[in-house]
């Protein structure tokens, strides 16, 4: 009980500190912007630890963060192997193929409003197919190794990416396009020098959404058959073995990798679309 109360007190104290920082003078500094969420995350962990220990929740239901951290540190080689299998081979390759194909498709159908009008609603329909249904099918088609995981990722990211790119290609203003016309610019010149750069904020929007989809898709696909490595494989087998600490260690890897991936794409976005008002701040 003391632990529970302790955790709650910590929570209150941390919240107070956060309020002070957030409303204080240095609130726009980089340090404050880092400290506040970190402190908040820390609070969540302390609360979790305190509740699990204080209420004697069995470790086979929900292990405390400390146990997860211990397990994490002890299992680095396995976690690494799983990470490579799922993230690098499955998610990343699927992400690149899926996003690349979507951009290419968007450019191809860009010249045909007819195709766009037809393809986008159908695309939205296909995008609504639940992964859990698609994954077993693709595992059956593409085998057990990372190829089928990449295929699932391709299917998941393709349509959000396509929709965003098509929207982006339409984002240049009529005036900007007219300007190109007064120069008698041809289709490719207009595409390269105007419409693609103007589309970048939208393209990156799609790329950002796709980062989380990619990782989740790759992990979920492993539930439906895999070699005996990979994050999804580990999660599903270790639940059955009641090694919940290992499961959470993998989830932590997923969350870290996913957030880092998102952060990386967001950073590239900042570099590429530096000119966009939303990036100029």
């Amino acid at each position: 009980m003391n632990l529970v109360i302790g955790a709650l007190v910590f929570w209150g104290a941390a919240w107070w500190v956060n309020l002070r920082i957030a409303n204080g003078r240095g609130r726009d500094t980089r340090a404050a912007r880092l400290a506040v969420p970190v402190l908040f995350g820390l609070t969540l962990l302390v609360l979790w630890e305190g509740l699990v220990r204080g209420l004697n929740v069995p470790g086979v239901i929900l292990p405390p963060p400390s146990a997860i951290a211990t397990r994490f540190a002890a299992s680095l080689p396995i976690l690494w192997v799983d990470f490579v299998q799922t993230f690098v081979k499955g998610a990343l390759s699927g992400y690149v193929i899926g996003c690349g194909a979507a951009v290419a498709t968007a450019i191809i159908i860009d010249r045909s409003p007819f195709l766009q009008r037809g393809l986008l609603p159908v695309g939205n329909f296909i995008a609504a197919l639940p992964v859990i249904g698609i994954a077993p099918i693709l595992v059956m088609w593409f085998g057990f190794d990372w190829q089928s995981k990449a295929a699932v990722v391709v299917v998941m990211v393709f349509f959000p990416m396509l929709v965003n790119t098509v929207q982006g290609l339409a984002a240049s203003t009529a005036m900007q396009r007219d300007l190109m016309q007064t120069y008698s610019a041809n289709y490719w010149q207009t595409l390269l020098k105007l419409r693609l750069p103007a589309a970048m904020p939208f393209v990156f929007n799609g790329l950002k959404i796709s980062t989380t989809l990619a990782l989740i898709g790759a992990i979920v696909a492993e539930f439906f058959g895999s070699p005996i490595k990979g994050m999804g494989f580990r999660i599903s087998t270790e639940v059955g073995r009641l090694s919940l600490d290992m499961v959470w260690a993998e989830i932590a890897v997923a969350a870290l990798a996913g957030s880092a991936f998102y952060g990386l794409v967001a950073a590239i976005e900042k570099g590429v679309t530096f000119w966009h008002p939303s990036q100029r701040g």
Partner: protein
Amino acid sequence: MTEPVITAEKLDLTFQTNDGPVQALRDVNLTINKGDFVSFIGPSGCGKTTFLRVIAALEHPTGGHITVNGMTPDEARQSRAYGYVFQAAGLYPWRTIAGNIKLPLEIMGFPKAEQEERVKNVLQLVDLEGFGKKYPWQLSGGMQQRASIARALAFDADILLMDEPFGALDEIVRDHLNEQLLALWARTQKTIGFVTHSIPEAVYLSTKIVVMSPRPGRIADVIESPLPRERPLEIRDTPEFIAVAHRVREGLRAGHSYD
């Protein structure tokens, strides 16, 4: 000096919209000579922009006839006859000022060295030396508008078409740019078509003022300016200036409804 560059005869243009046809231009007849500075003035929706776009082959008339340098507007465009300046500067935010000015040069396939050369020249012409490496949003509105004029000048088009280029600027900056534009026109001897809402601006700049009236867009009056080509800002307080301004205002008032 009086050879015609643009001749429009019985020009009609009707847009097909969802709410039925909109007649934007009706029976427009006009001749613009080489070296003219022609202003178009008229209430909103009277077809000023549309007429400029027809000249630049961005719209095609549904009736009548127009020639530019003896060619059709489309052919004239192919031969790079137009520099077009829009109301908003419309610089591409992902290119530097120099990059923006280079844009038409790249498209028209000028050699790299010449591109640099021309960028340098026009930057000087519009008083923006040293700003080539800046991005558009780092410049004030007036500077952006000058850059967009530089962009239109860079490839030496015969005809400069400007659609309310200074509409978004404050009056002082506007006065200043007007002076500069006159100087530039004097130096380059270009033919200029200029759309504006401001009576003093039209009178101050033009050799010929075309007053238009709406619904459908027609030419209500064409005023040949009696003012000399040399025009200090003070000319605006002279009786000749005020007389011309008065005639323009009368022409406008005639065809105007207030909403």
